């Protein structure tokens, strides 16, 4: 009160962010706690490294025996088929689902229903979905295809819905004003605006389905994943290396191809 009113308190350029500090301390405490519970200790880590060394030594050289290559080829072809089938069906089903979920195109109850559907599809990792389908329809490629269709629909239809919501409504309005039916409006004003991005999403999806097809195989969904799983079970680590290298090669080729497709439809 005695200080002159013109004297202002010293200004602080970077005031302490107490909430952030508390969060960081809590996070650090949780990391230490979780590590102690899970028995993650330095000696355990060293022991693990030793295991890893043995594992790597047993992997070399990669096994290229003709019978193994035959197994690899069969597995790869099946994985490829799973990926392509899942992408085509998943992507085809995503288009109507995505349109239904777009709030500027569809009616509110339908949009919310479609959104709930998409959220459901997205709530589990493809591997979990694959386990469910393996239990439901039995081991093999069918379970893998179904699991990846669900994964593709969850991803693509969400992106399609967002692309539709971002498009220019002016163009849609003009086409609607010609007396066009709903589907004609979709064909002539919605599709032209979203098709390029849709092709982009789809080729990303083919890409990730190639990778995921190996993954769903691990849990019984057929394809190269199944081959890989068997190789692990039989301790054929040299063959495991062959399979892993082949998967890397396929994924890289897939990436190049999907890059081409995207450029083609720009």
């Amino acid at each position, binding site marked *: 009160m005695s200080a002159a009113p013109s004297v202002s308190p010293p200004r602080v350029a970077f005031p302490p962010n107490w909430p952030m500090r508390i969060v960081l301390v809590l996070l650090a405490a949780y990391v230490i706690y979780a590590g102690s519970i899970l028995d993650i200790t330095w000696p355990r880590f060293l022991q693990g490294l030793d295991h890893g060394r043995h594992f790597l030594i047993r992997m070399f050289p990669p096994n290229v025996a003709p019978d193994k290559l035959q197994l690899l080829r069969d597995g790869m072809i099946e994985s490829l088929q799973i990926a392509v089938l899942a992408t085509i069906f998943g992507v085809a089903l995503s288009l109507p689902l995505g349109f239904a979920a777009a709030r500027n195109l569809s009616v509110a109850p339908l949009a919310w229903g479609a959104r709930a559907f998409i959220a459901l599809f997205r709530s589990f990792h493809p591997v979990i979905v694959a386990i469910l389908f393996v239990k439901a329809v039995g081991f093999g490629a069918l379970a893998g295809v179904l699991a990846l269709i669900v994964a593709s629909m969850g991803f693509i239809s969400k992106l399609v819905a967002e692309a539709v919501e971002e498009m220019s409504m002016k163009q849609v309005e003009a086409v609607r004003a010609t*007396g066009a039916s709903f589907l004609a409006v979709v064909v002539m004003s919605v599709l032209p*605006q979203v098709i390029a991005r849709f092709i982009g999403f789809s080729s990303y999806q083919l890409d990730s389905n190639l990778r995921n097809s190996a993954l769903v195989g691990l849990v019984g969904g057929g394809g190269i994943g199944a081959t890989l799983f068997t190789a692990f079970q039989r301790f054929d680590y040299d063959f495991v290396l062959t399979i892993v290298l082949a998967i890397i090669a396929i994924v890289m080729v897939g990436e190049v191809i999907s890059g081409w497709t995207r450029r083609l439809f720009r």
Partner: protein
Amino acid sequence: MGALAQGEVRAAGAVPPRLLVIKNLRKEYRAGIVVLKDVSLTISGRGMTAIIGPSGTGKSTLIRCINRLVDPTSGEILFMGEDLAKLGGRELRRARRRIGMVFQEYNLVERLSVIENVLCGRLGYAPLWRIWLRKFVAEDVDSAFQLLDEVGLGDFATQRADQLSGGQRQRVGIARALMQEPDLMLADEPTSSLDPKSSVEIMELLARQAGERDIPVIVNIHNVELARRYADRVIGMSKGGIVFDGPPQALEDKHLLAIYGGEGWLD
């Protein structure tokens, strides 16, 4: 002259005249906030009617109520004997295909080619498979090319619409509306996004093309000079109601003051 004769034949024949009668048209976007205050208006089946007035006065809403891009709150829109305000579904689409519309920002589908945009004018008539496969009937494709020639864009048919300039885009917009073989043309600020020269050219084109086909045109326009020059009738709107209605010669400064309010800007 030929077009005039054709119009008379139409008026005399079984086809109802292209008369537009708007009765007590009211629009509230949010309850209680009235944009159109019970507008009543009769527009005869020919010539160009210009609606002028300040921004936000309900000109666009009025024009969009006619083809129901905006749904009126109450009132009647009788066009050729049919109340457009009551239509829905298939009947509404049938009514819309007879009403061509030209937009302020052209509203072309940018990723479609120019000719595809013009052929959009046939969407109300063509079955979906023809649209999907772009197998429009040959006569439609021919008349689309002819319309493009008439608006001076014959060489641009296969270019993508986003490659055109503003004036060129609006020409495509007019061709698209004409492609519908409409009984009425609506133009919502067709020149507001254009430079002065293109504005005149677009109004000239709109007046000539509609005149040759004897199609009545309702045009919202900010440019009073263009309205005077091309319209047969001028309607002045202010605050959701009509405050002037008469031939362009009758439009005096005192009317403009009543329409736009304020003073000093006219000097």
